[in-house]
């Protein structure tokens, strides 16, 4: 990596942004600032520039723009319109899985999972909710259930409101537990968690959930064996931070193919590739550049026009796109898509530690809004799950899911919530959604040097399987 060229590149890019302000193009100048910040973060991420120096350069650009566009002109500060910089947070370390968060409380403990797959029906004077209790997660410090709920009322009713907040639990000894619900709620659909407080002692055979009024309950067997997933560890691709970054940009483009979802930073592809190459972080003939350019060519991404031009004149090598990418592209190239799966599938798959992170797959929720995979994690970094590149954490280490029909799905980060200590819960959206009749999944979870291949048989729960 040529650090001098990297810094020069970043500074010249900053000058190009300022030039827009000097040429009376304030909107263009302000729109350019996030690009400069993204390139700064990218160069810092691959070790081409010191994070502090990158932050100083982008800070100088921000100040220079402020002086031209706001100062002395009686205008509100223009930079208030620009997303704030969290470059410092991003640049504090390399991409997430390379720097796992280590909390003392639970790090050394084990994660256990129990499949549940039962429905709890909640009713009060305002609404009715069908709550699928998918699985239980236990760490040394906590116990919580993955749930998927559908209410008969649209927002603003959510898990933080009754009747969800009036549930309590009782164990075989008659001990009572508070149930704290939380999660993501939109338009009557909820994916979330029921946290059990205090944590039931090890050996507790079952818990009963009582909604408000205590008229109906479900008993959850805590001794049910975990699922029968098969996990294999395989050698990962050689570590290549710049290549990983370009692949992350490609994941952003792929994830944005789904209707209704937009690529977060697909417009940055050309800037990122050029900056990394200028810094010497991408070797000549880099297959990652070829993959990204090829993807831009296939998708017609206007932001990648420059890359495509370089591909067409042979400056960037033409490479075959990875099979999972092609699978997703082929799906979205079809005129008609197969009917999507509806329902829930409890999972209780604890993965081996990967780069210091433990993942636990807790359930699949498939509805009209798509297919979501509920996951818990120990050790996942919290601060930079969304970095200055506006790339979610998972784009750096993309998860792929191959279903029993052979279709591949990219897992996009839908939500991530830090629960304190080193525990997180997250929801991944599968792109495209799972089709009907899927009976088995193969989940690829990449790490820095090793990737996990997890084969999971699926059992889709139907409403009549559960509630009482």
């Amino acid at each position, binding site marked *: 990596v040529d650090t001098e060229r990297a810094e020069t590149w970043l500074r010249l890019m900053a000058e190009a942004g300022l030039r827009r302000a000097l040429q009376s193009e304030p909107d263009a100048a302000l729109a350019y600032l996030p690009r400069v910040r993204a390139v700064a973060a990218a160069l810092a991420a691959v070790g081409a520039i010191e994070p502090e120096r990158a932050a*100083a350069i982008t800070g100088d650009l921000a100040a220079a723009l402020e002086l031209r566009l706001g100062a002395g002109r009686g205008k509100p500060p223009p930079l208030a319109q620009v997303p704030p910089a969290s470059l410092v947070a991003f640049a504090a370390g390399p991409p997430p899985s390379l720097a796992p968060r280590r909390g003392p409380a639970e790090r050394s403990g084990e994660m256990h999972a129990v499949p549940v797959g039962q429905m709890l029906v909640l009713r009060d004077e305002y609404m009715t909710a069908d709550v699928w209790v998918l699985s239980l997660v236990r760490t040394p410090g906590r116990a919580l259930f993955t749930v998927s709920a559908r209410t008969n009322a649209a927002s603003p009713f959510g898990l933080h409101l009754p009747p969800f907040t009036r549930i309590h639990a009782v164990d075989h000894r008659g001990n009572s537990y508070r149930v704290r619900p939380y999660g993501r709620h939109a338009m009557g659909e909820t994916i979330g968690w029921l946290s059990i407080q205090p944590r039931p002692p090890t050996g507790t055979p079952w818990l009963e959930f009582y909604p408000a009024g205590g008229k109906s309950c479900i008993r959850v067997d805590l001794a049910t064996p975990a699922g029968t997933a098969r996990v294999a560890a395989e050698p990962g691709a050689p570590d290549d931070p710049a290549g990983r970054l370009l692949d992350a940009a490609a994941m952003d483009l792929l994830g944005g193919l789904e209707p209704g979802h937009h690529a977060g930073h697909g417009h940055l592809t050309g800037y990122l590739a*050029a900056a990394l190459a200028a810094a010497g972080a991408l070797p000549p003939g880099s297959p990652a550049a070829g993959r990204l350019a090829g993807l831009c060519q296939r998708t017609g991404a206007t932001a990648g026009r420059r890359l495509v031009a*370089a591909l067409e004149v042979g400056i960037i090598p033409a490479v075959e796109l990875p099979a999972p990418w092609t699978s997703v592209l082929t799906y979205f190239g079809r005129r008609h898509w197969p009917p999507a799966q509806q329902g829930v599938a409890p999972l209780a798959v604890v993965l081996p530690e990967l780069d210091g992170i433990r993942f636990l797959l807790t359930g699949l929720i498939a509805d009209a809004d798509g297919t979501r995979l509920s996951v818990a994690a120990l050790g996942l970094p919290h601060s930079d799950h969304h970095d200055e590149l506006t790339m979610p954490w998972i784009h750096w280490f993309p998860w792929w899911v191959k279903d029993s029909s052979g279709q591949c799905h990219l897992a996009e980060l839908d939500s991530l919530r830090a629960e304190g200590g080193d525990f997180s819960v997250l929801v991944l959206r599968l792109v495209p959604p799972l089709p009907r009749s899927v009976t088995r999944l193969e989940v690829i979870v990449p790490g820095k040097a090793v990737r996990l291949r997890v084969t999971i048989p699926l059992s889709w729960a139907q409403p009549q399987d559960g509630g009482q």
Partner: protein
Amino acid sequence: VTGLDGAGQAGQQPPWWAALPPAEMEITCGQARHTIRWADGELVLPAHPDAEAELILGALGGDKCECTELAAVWRRHHDDLALLALGPRSAADEIGITWDEISTVSSSKWAFGLQGPAVSARDVRRALTTTGLAYSPLTGQWAAPPGGVPESGRLELLTLLALGPAFGMRLAATVAAAWSGAARAADRAANRPALTAALASRFALAAGAWAGMEAGQLTASLHEGPGWGSLEHTGQAASGPASSYPEGGLANGAYPDAGWPEGGWLDGKFQRGGLRAWLAQVWAAGLTVVEGHLVLAVQAARWPAAEVLALRGLGGTPVTLQVRAADPAAGDAARSGGSRWQVAG
């Protein structure tokens, strides 16, 4: 050429300020209005003939006055590269900040700590952004980025920039000259990216229109060698040094929706002497383009006259020109960043 500093003395360059006229402005100093004056590369205080002694007394606890404080700030930043990052790119580059605003910024340092004089939220936000602080959505607080210019240093820079374009251009020239000395070769090497960007941005704005190119098609680089440097024009866009992948990515920013830019690339390769010769002597004096000639270096000068090395067009050979300030009596040079020049004779 008679009467021009540097002429006729082999190997000797004129002082870097030789093509710059004096500049003056009044500031409030205590209860009075005092003139501060820039001339011959120095900031001087006519109302304070022994400014050095006043500074020492002030440092020892005596009264401080605005004039001497300002001179001290100027001296502290005479080689501050941040000035080139924040300061003017051309005489037309208006940096609209006033001393009243600086005062607000200074006050808001304490206002941020919920003490001191009341200022509006806008003032505070403004102050924080201009001083380089950033809002962290993670902590919900404003914080200074590590490694950035310290807040007090940034405020001092803003104070200097609030003096207006004439002083801003001269201070930028001062910084460029300070970095061009033979003794600072190691410093230059360590700070080549910042120096390159300072040169390239100003060169691109000045020479772009002359070359018939967008500013994004001009680059510059800094080298250690004799002379002022050279210009290289690459007409074949797709294979030129700046357009070929990876460097062409910068043009991707300049031409986000277009293919390869027309017209190729112009690369200014500046030698150490060129840093001083072009940035301090040519650019700061407003000599960049005179009647269709791109001025590359000043060979001799005593304002309002100069002997310059200039190009008539791309691919041509540099020629020596005699130039003069168009209207030295009008005083525009003192108010704005540079003079208007014309070819003499």
